[in-house]
C-alpha cells in the first residue's frame, strides 16, 4: 500500500501548545506564507478557521504544518452551530477533534451563534434568543465539544444586528451563565462589543463592566463597516475588511488595563492587505499589551 506522506500528529513539534500570555497575533492567510516564513524568530501567534483545514490532505495542511512548526496556533471554529437548537453534527465535531489532536493549538474557540438549520448551511454567524431554553441547549453543546476535545473551549461573544422578542436575559448575563455552568473560557471580541452596543443602543462600557472578564483567555480586534437601519440611524457591520477603529482600540486598552495581558488577535478576513500592514496592526496591539505587562490579571486575583 501507499505511504502516507503527511506527518502524523506525534511527529509535529509540540512547542507553544501551552498558554502563550500577552502576545498579539494575526489571522493566517495562505498568501502571506512566504513573507511569514522569511521573517525568522517572529513573536506572535496565528489563528485559522478550523473548517478551512478539514480537507483530507494537500496544500492547506502543508501550509498549516509550516506555520505550526514555529508559532503558537489558535484554532477558531466557525461552523459548529453551538447556538442552534439542533444536535451538533457528529461528523463535524469529530473533524474538529482531529484537528485539535493533530495541531495541538494553544487556543481553541467557537462562536455563540448558529449557521446550519435542517439540511442547509448558511455560512453566517446567526443570532439566537437568550432564554432558559437556549441556555440549556448551548451548555449541552459546549459540554459535548469540551468532552470531545478534552480541553476548555473559548466561547466568542457575537456581533448582532437585531434582537429576539422572546429574549429574557441580557447577553452578558447569558454568557456568564454559560461559562459558569460549562467551565468554558471566553473569547472577548471587542469589535463585536462595539458593533452590538451601537446597533442596540446600549453602552459598550456598561457591557464590558457586566462581562465576566476573569474568564477571558483571548481577545479579537477587527475593522467594521457602516450602514443605516430602517430609521436611518447608524448600523455597524462586522466586516473584518479594514483596520481596527480608534474607538475599538480605546475599549481594548480599557479591557487590558482591567484584565491584564491576554493573547490578542487582529482579524482581517476580506480585502486582505499585504503582510506588513497586518503585522503593523498586531504591533499596535502588542504595544498596548506590553504597556500593561505588570497589570495583575483579573483571573489571578480571583484565584488567589
Amino acid at each position: 500500500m501507499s505511504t502516507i506522506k503527511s506527518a502524523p500528529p506525534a511527529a509535529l513539534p509540540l512547542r507553544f501548545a501551552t498558554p502563550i500570555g500577552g502576545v498579539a497575533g494575526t489571522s493566517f492567510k495562505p498568501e502571506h506564507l512566504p513573507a511569514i516564513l522569511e521573517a525568522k524568530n517572529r513573536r506572535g501567534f496565528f489563528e485559522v478557521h478550523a473548517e478551512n483545514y478539514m480537507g483530507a490532505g494537500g496544500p492547506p495542511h502543508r501550509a498549516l504544518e509550516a506555520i505550526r512548526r514555529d508559532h503558537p496556533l489558535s484554532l477558531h471554529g466557525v461552523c459548529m452551530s453551538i447556538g442552534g437548537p439542533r444536535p451538533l453534527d457528529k461528523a463535524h465535531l469529530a473533524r474538529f477533534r482531529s484537528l485539535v489532536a493533530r495541531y495541538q493549538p494553544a487556543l481553541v474557540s467557537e462562536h455563540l451563534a448558529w449557521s446550519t438549520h435542517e439540511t442547509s448551511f448558511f455560512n453566517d454567524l446567526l443570532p439566537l434568543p437568550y432564554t432558559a431554553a437556549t441556555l440549556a441547549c448551548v451548555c449541552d453543546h459546549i459540554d459535548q465539544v469540551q468532552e470531545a476535545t478534552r480541553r476548555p473551549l473559548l466561547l466568542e461573544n457575537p456581533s448582532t444586528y437585531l434582537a429576539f422578542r422572546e429574549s429574557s436575559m441580557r447577553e452578558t448575563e447569558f454568557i456568564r451563565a454559560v461559562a459558569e455552568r460549562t467551565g468554558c473560557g471566553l473569547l472577548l471580541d471587542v469589535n463585536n462589543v462595539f458593533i452590538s452596543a451601537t446597533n442596540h443602543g446600549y453602552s459598550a462600557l456598561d457591557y464590558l463592566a457586566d462581562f465576566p472578564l476573569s474568564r477571558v483567555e483571548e481577545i479579537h480586534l477587527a475593522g467594521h463597516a457602516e450602514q443605516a437601519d430602517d430609521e436611518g440611524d447608524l448600523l455597524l457591520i462586522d466586516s473584518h475588511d479594514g483596520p481596527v477603529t480608534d474607538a475599538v482600540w480605546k475599549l481594548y486598552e480599557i479591557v487590558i488595563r482591567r484584565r491584564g495581558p491576554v493573547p490578542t488577535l487582529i482579524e482581517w478576513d476580506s480585502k486582505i492587505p499585504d503582510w506588513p500592514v497586518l503585522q503593523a496592526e498586531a504591533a499596535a496591539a502588542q504595544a498596548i499589551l506590553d504597556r500593561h505587562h505588570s497589570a495583575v490579571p483579573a483571573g489571578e486575583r480571583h484565584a488567589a
Partner: protein
Amino acid sequence: MPPEPGLCFAASFAPALLDPARSTPELVTGPNGKAADRRYDVYRNNVTVSLIDALAAIYPAVQRITGTDFFRAMARFHVRSNPPTSPLLFEYGRDFPEFIEAYEHAQDMPWLADVARLERAWLDAYHAADAAPLSPARLSAVTPEHLADLVFIPHPAARCLRSDYAAVTIFAANRDNAPVMRIDASTPEDALITRGEFDVAVRRLPPGGAVFARHLLSGRPLGEAAAAALEAASEFDIAANIAGLIEAGAFTSLCCGDPS
C-alpha cells in the same frame, strides 16, 4: 424530531434568509421598538453574498469567461435553489456544472459546464488525501509476462474527465489573468488531473488516453486497459501513456493482477 418548546427560533429565522419573497420573521425586532427589516437584511445579504463568493472561489475560470455580473446572477439563482448542505465550503457547488448546463442564458456556451467540471475536479484534487506517488522503477522491475495483469492503485487526487469540447484549453487559458487567444471550442479534449505534494496539474490526454486512464484508475488490469485504448484510437502508444500517467503521479502503487 421537532425541537423542544423554546427552541423554535431557527425554524422561524431561517426560511427567509435565501427567499427574498418572504418578509422579515415576526420573532425579531430592533431595539426600543425599532423596525428590523434592514437589520434582518444584513443576514440575508451575508448569507447570499458569501455563498456566491464561495462559488466564485471554486469556479474562477467560469467567472472570467462569463464576466462577473453574469456569473453572480447565475450563482445567485443556484445559491437560492441549492444552498450548501455541508459546513465545509470547499465541498459546495458539486451540482453547479449541471445547473450551468441547464441555465438558459448559458446555452450559447455549451462547453461552460465542462470547464466547471474541471474546476470542481481541480479543487477535489487539491484537498484529496496525501499519498506518495508510484516510483517509475516499480514498473521497470515487472517482468514482461506479468505486464498484462498489472493493476494500479490510484492516487486519491487522480481524476480523468472527458469533454466533447476544448474544455482543457479553455480552462487553462482562463485560470489566470493572461490574455486569451482565440480557441476552437469544438475540438473534444480529455483531461488528467493529479496532485503532487503541492500543486494540482491538469494535463490534456492524447487520443485513447482517457479510455486507458479510466480503466486503470478504476482498477482494471493493464492488458485490458491497453486493448480498450487501442480500440478507441489505433495510434495509441501504450508505453508513452503508462509512463505519462506514472510521471503525473496518477498512481501510488501497483500489484500483479489476480488479487487471490
